[in-house]
């Protein structure tokens, strides 16, 4: 039996996961575009109770329970419904308690256990829905009803929330703990569930609700003030438009001038400097220093007479580096001219170059590497390498040979 339920539930959840795109489309847009999906899939979803068609001509929509699940999971602010049907839940509690007690009396303990499980589920669901309602109200308060733009709409939303608080409060009045305690009798499990758990949550919810109510009233007051101000401003503009020559009475002439129009004139002027105050010396000197000298008023001294300027060629200084680079270039040219393979050291000996062997080889490699990649492709370079006698992994380049390919 249990396996059956598990399997069916998993099948439902899998169907939801597989068709999450359809479900989300229905959630966001309100209805499913039936042309996009195969009719078989939609049929299947309808059979599973995820989608439904309110009447023959309307589109497929999401079932309320699925929507509620999504709203809750996404903390969507569109969820403004507060479920406060405590009355029927309480009636169900009483019924289940009666079932449970009867089963206990007749010593049908498995049956009693199942009734108790139902009762627990129901109680927690009741608490959860109450808390959910309060949470929803708080989230709306925190956002100051930001999902609607105009102040008028905010006021309407606030009134809706107030109505919901009143509803929850009137539903809460239906809790009669003395009755519940009586129902529970001396049964320990029942007492814990119906008296302790319910009561502590009841107290918490009532307290929260009173805070919610206070905040809602405060917000309503603020919204009304905003509304009043906007109307005041608009009314003023309207009044001026209708009576362009309007001027308020001259309240300054009244024997009792209203305090809003009684503003004393400014009487403080900047103080003068005291040059004899030694404490201010540094500051004053700084101010004097910042005074800009006005140059164009002063008589300029005549410009100095022109002189001939001799320009001499500066002594050419050639760097050894340039020399070695030129030799490398000659070496490359030789390779290009002959097209033959030639070792760098051979060239060095042949031309009796004065550079150090190591520097020469280094420069040749450098010259090769510095070529643009297009030109590099014309040359081939091979390094004759020897392992280092002492440190393995280190190589010593003894010579390089270059050819034109």
């Amino acid at each position, binding site marked *: 039996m249990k396996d059956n339920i598990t399997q069916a539930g998993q099948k439902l959840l899998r169907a939801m996961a597989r068709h999450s795109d359809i479900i989300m489309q229905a959630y966001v847009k309100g209805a499913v575009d039936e042309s996009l999906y195969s009719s078989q899939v939609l049929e299947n979803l309808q059979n599973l109770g995820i989608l439904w068609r309110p009447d023959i001509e309307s589109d497929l929509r999401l079932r309320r329970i699925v929507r509620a699940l999504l709203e809750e999971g996404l903390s969507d602010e569109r969820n403004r419904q507060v479920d406060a049907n405590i009355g029927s839940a309480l009636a169900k509690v009483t019924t289940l308690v009666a079932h449970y007690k009867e089963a206990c009396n007749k010593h049908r303990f498995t049956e009693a256990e199942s009734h108790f499980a139902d009762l627990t589920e129901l109680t927690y669901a009741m608490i959860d829905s109450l808390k959910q309602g309060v949470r929803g109200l708080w989230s709306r308060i925190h956002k100051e009803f930001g999902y609607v733009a105009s102040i008028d709409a905010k006021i309407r939303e606030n009134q809706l929330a107030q109505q919901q608080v009143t509803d929850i409060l009137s539903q809460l009045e239906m809790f009669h703990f003395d009755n519940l305690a009586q129902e529970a009798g001396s049964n320990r499990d029942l007492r814990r569930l119906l008296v302790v758990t319910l009561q502590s949550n009841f107290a918490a919810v009532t307290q929260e609700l009173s805070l919610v109510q206070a905040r809602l009233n405060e917000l309503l007051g603020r919204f009304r003030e*905003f509304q009043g101000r906007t109307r005041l401003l608009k*009314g*003023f503009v*309207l009044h001026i438009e209708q009576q362009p020559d309007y001027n308020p009475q001259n309240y300054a002439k009244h024997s009792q001038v209203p305090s*809003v129009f*009684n503003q004393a004139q400014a009487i403080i002027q900047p103080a003068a400097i005291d040059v004899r105050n030694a404490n201010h010396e540094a500051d004053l000197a700084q101010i004097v220093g910042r005074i800009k000298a006005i140059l164009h008023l002063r008589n300029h001294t005549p410009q100095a007479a022109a002189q001939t300027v001799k320009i001499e060629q500066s002594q050419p200084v050639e760097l050894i580096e340039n020399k070695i680079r030129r030799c490398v270039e000659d070496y490359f040219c030789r390779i290009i001219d002959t097209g033959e393979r030639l070792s760098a050291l051979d060239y060095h000996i042949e031309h009796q170059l004065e550079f150090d062997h190591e520097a020469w080889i280094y420069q040749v490699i450098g010259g090769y590497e510095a070529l643009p990649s297009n030109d590099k492709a014309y040359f081939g370079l091979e390094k004759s390498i020897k392992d280092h006698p002492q440190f393995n992994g280190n190589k010593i380049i003894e010579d390089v040979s270059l050819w034109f390919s």
Partner: protein
Amino acid sequence: MMTQQGQVLETLLSGGFVCRISNEDMFNFLQQPQTAQQIENQLNILNRTLTKAADGEVFYASYLSLADKERAVLERQFKEITANLLPLVEWLLLVQESTGQDVPLSQGSAIRLNELQTTIEDTPALLEQLGKISTFPLFGSTSKTADGQLKQVFKRLGELGYLVKPNSEKQIYIATGKLEYLYEVIRFIDETEALSLTEQAEAAMQQGVLL
């Protein structure tokens, strides 16, 4: 270094308004009955008294007794205030419409000039209104561009003490308590002269007159 008391006294005697946005320390100083009394005593010597407006949100100095000289000052001031009412109200409505939040500016509201400018530049109706507002003598802008007009309007409002700019490098302005004072002036005129401005606006909105 001047004491807190000296600073408060200087601000009040130079015709400034003290609110919690423009200077919180001074505002707290004036909120304490003991220190407020000290200031009051000093102001009294100069025929001035400490006055609260807008539910105690702003403090300023007003005359203690009125002779002809003071009345002349007040009359001049009154003319100035009433002449400035319309441009200020129109500006408030412009900002309210541009921010799209339907919330009137009040003490502590932040205005981001860049955002405001973008919205206004994108909406021809608002652009026209800005052009109209900026040419009022109060703002006196001669600029042809929305950018120049807005800058001039906000600069003037800063000078008049309606706005403060907490960070000189950022174009964010915060409305001061003087704005609350402005609302009080309008409300006072409305009540005293029984203009029933709110009702007029309400009736107009119901008839669908575009405002």
